[in-house]
């Protein structure tokens, strides 16, 4: 009887130890699952476009800014044309202005 009780106690202890070990192991797994998923960052598909082409793209100028630049261009061109008519020469006909549309 004593032997039976001893074997039973030993078995219970072994089962308890296994349960504790299993619990610890499963806790580690759930912890690791909670970590943020690692993502592999890939470059966007480029096909035949070169990366340098992307750098050449410029954001569109707002229409209000464009209108202001056109207005300034017209004024400067008018002044340049008047200057040419005051003293017509080949050089003054094609003189440069500080127009924002030409730079």
């Amino acid at each position, binding site marked *: 009887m004593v032997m039976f009780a001893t074997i039973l106690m030993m078995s219970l202890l072994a089962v308890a130890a296994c349960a504790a070990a299993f619990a610890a192991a499963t806790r580690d797994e759930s912890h690791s699952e909670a970590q943020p998923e690692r993502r592999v960052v890939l470059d966007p598909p480029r096909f035949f476009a070169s990366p340098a082409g992307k750098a050449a793209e410029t954001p*569109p100028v707002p*229409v209000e800014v*464009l*209108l202001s630049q*056109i*207005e300034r261009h*017209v*004024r400067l*061109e*008018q002044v*340049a*044309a*008047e200057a*040419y*008519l005051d003293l017509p020469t080949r050089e003054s*006909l*094609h003189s440069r202005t500080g127009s924002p549309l*030409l730079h």
Partner: protein
Amino acid sequence: MASVQTDLLNGLSEEDRAGFLALGVPTRLASRQTLFRLGTEADRAYLVTRGRIALTLPLRIRGGEEEILVEETLPGETVGWSGLVPPHRFTLNAAAAIDSELLGFSRTSVLDHFAAHPAVGHTVTRNLAAVIGHRLQVFQTMWLREMQRVVEQRYS
């Protein structure tokens, strides 16, 4: 009104200047108010006496249409020659850039005055031709400058 200084009346006596200016009907425009629109019938020309009139043309930008400044007329300058020159249709839009005052000269009153005073008609017409000729040369020069840039961009 005899104090208005304008190239249009160069060479006229004070009496003739006053007589011509008396034909003008004072017109007052608030800032941004339209004087005339492109394509509409032109029955009068204007002399700017105060302020500034912006002449614009429509330009297509990104699918929309925007008014682009072509020229500004200042006190002493004329605007709306189409009122005197066939086919009597305005070829630009005109609006006050700031609060402005003008004298409006109807075609019939001007032609009647010229018929009654041929010497005045001759002088004013000659002055008008000089003003129009100068503007034509300015725009011809501006056009050539733009053409030069197009050629440089395309073929250089």
